[in-house]
């Protein structure tokens, strides 16, 4: 039986000349840019870009698309934000079943380990419903609103149950590539807004963790995003009077100093207008935001000799809403809600550690 002899002998006197690839040579010489992913296992790659320009805030009369009662539920409340990883096997059609399970869970978990209080609440009822009309693109999942209602002990028999806690799970204009890259059983609603006692928030989160295998985490709004919000709100001034622009900084002196800087809306708008390179263009770039904030800071420095960039921006508020660094947001006007929620959805997606 002859086997094919497939060994190849290295020729003894033959010098193998390597064709010096020009691209490889220039790559070796390129100074500060290196190839990445040398240590990563190649897998499903999803890429999220940190945005450097955003669309100008458009006044969206969402009462056309969203039920006005539901809009009323969203505005004028202070929400605490957290990010949510994608939910596994979450069905929008099974909301009634979910609300029953959640109320049973709360009833079973609540009295554990707590002393009996005088004004204890009895009889929890959970409402989970969809808020239609907020989603921007086809990839966004519909927004879910969760309400916990209960009756106080000393209430009269016919008193209606009061809302003790509300929550909102939403995804507005999320990154399209990212949403498309998720496996089909997962629904991504990356932003959770909660309003109410922390004990209920913890219960709802643990139920979601158990049922849909997701993770929650605190979301803080970084100073860059607070600056984005400040400029977006100021930019809305010609259409809707924002009345004032209030910024609060914390300066790391001993003892720490809090500086609140309130600017008249008209002056803020004039400064913003002069910073804008192309007033007609729809998008706002991060350089314009930086120049706007730096303009405000240099004005402050000229009067008070205190450089605000040494501290960190903590709070931004206008008549349209207010945002705090620790993750609290309050929207007072329904017109620009989609833009603010879109910015917050982006923050939540970037914060998520998948």
């Amino acid at each position, binding site marked *: 039986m002859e086997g094919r002899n497939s060994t190849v002998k290295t020729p003894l006197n033959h010098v193998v000349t390597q064709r010096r690839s020009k691209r490889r040579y220039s790559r070796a010489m390129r100074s500060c840019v290196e190839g990445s992913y040398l240590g990563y296992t190649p897998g499903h790659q*999803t890429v999220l870009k940190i945005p450097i320009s955003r669309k100008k805030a458009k006044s969206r009369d969402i009462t056309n698309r969203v039920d006005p009662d539901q809009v009323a539920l969203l505005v004028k409340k202070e929400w605490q934000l957290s990010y949510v990883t994608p939910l596994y096997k979450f069905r929008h059609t099974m909301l009634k079943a979910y609300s029953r399970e959640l109320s049973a869970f709360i009833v079973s978990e609540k009295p554990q380990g707590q002393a009996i209080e005088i004004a204890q609440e009895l009889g929890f009822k959970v409402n989970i419903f969809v808020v239609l009309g907020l989603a921007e693109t086809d990839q966004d999942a519909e927004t879910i609103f969760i309400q916990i209602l209960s009756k106080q002990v000393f209430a009269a028999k016919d008193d209606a149950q009061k809302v003790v806690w509300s929550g909102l799970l939403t995804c507005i204009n999320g990154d399209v590539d990212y949403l498309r890259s998720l496996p089909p059983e997962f629904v991504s609603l990356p932003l959770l807004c909660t309003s109410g006692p922390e004990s209920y928030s913890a219960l709802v989160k643990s139920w979601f963790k158990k049922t849909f295998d997701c993770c929650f985490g605190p979301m803080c709004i*970084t100073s860059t995003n607070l600056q984005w919000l400040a400029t977006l709100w100021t930019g809305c001034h010609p259409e809707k009077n924002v009345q004032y622009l209030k910024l609060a900084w914390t300066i790391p002196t001993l003892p720490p100093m809090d500086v609140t800087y309130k600017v008249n809306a008209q002056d803020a708008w004039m400064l913003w207008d002069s910073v804008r390179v192309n007033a007609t263009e729809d998008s706002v770039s991060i350089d314009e935001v930086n120049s706007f904030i730096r303009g405000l800071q240099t004005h402050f420095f000229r009067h008070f000799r205190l450089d605000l960039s*040494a501290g960190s921006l903590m709070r931004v508020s206008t008549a349209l809403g207010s945002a705090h660094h620790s993750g609290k947001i309050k929207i007072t006007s329904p017109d620009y809600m989609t833009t603010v929620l879109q910015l917050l959805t982006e923050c939540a997606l*970037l914060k998520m550690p998948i």
Partner: protein
Amino acid sequence: MALLKPFSKLPELNTANILLVENEEQLQQNLAESIVLQKTNTNVNVRLARSLPLPIEKEKFRPRIDLVVFIINLTSDLSYQSAETSLKFLDPGYFLGKVCFLVTNARNASVPPERLISVRKLVASLHCPLLYAEDQTTEGVNTAAHRLLAILKVTAGHVPMATGLYLSSLSRCTVPSDIDQQNFD
């Protein structure tokens, strides 16, 4: 012109001089004490500054500076701006291995990630090494002091067969081309 020049003075025997530049003047004090307390065979002099240029009156008494370290605190924007403006007052000869950047609070959740990215881009464009330090604990400060001392010994010429330029080209900061994007693998 108040440029700080690397080779305009003669070196002293068995001595190394390090200059720590920090706008907040918080970490440099602890770091200086820790560097001086490290066990080493050379005499180490630590000089502190808030920003460059250094006062011109003291120019005669100043020894030759072997390593300039810029300390940037990521929680404040002013720290980064001040370091950037101080760079203009450094002679280009320093950037061949005698400059190092030290960044604190990189793990802080309230720091916007864009700031660290811009620091990395700046340091990569200057071909300098970038170190990260933990300034709240004594161990962190001691670790940072130990690393700075290792670099200082090379730049002062106390390590045979190694120069500052050689070390910095091995350990300089690099940024991947897609640093503005977050990748999830």
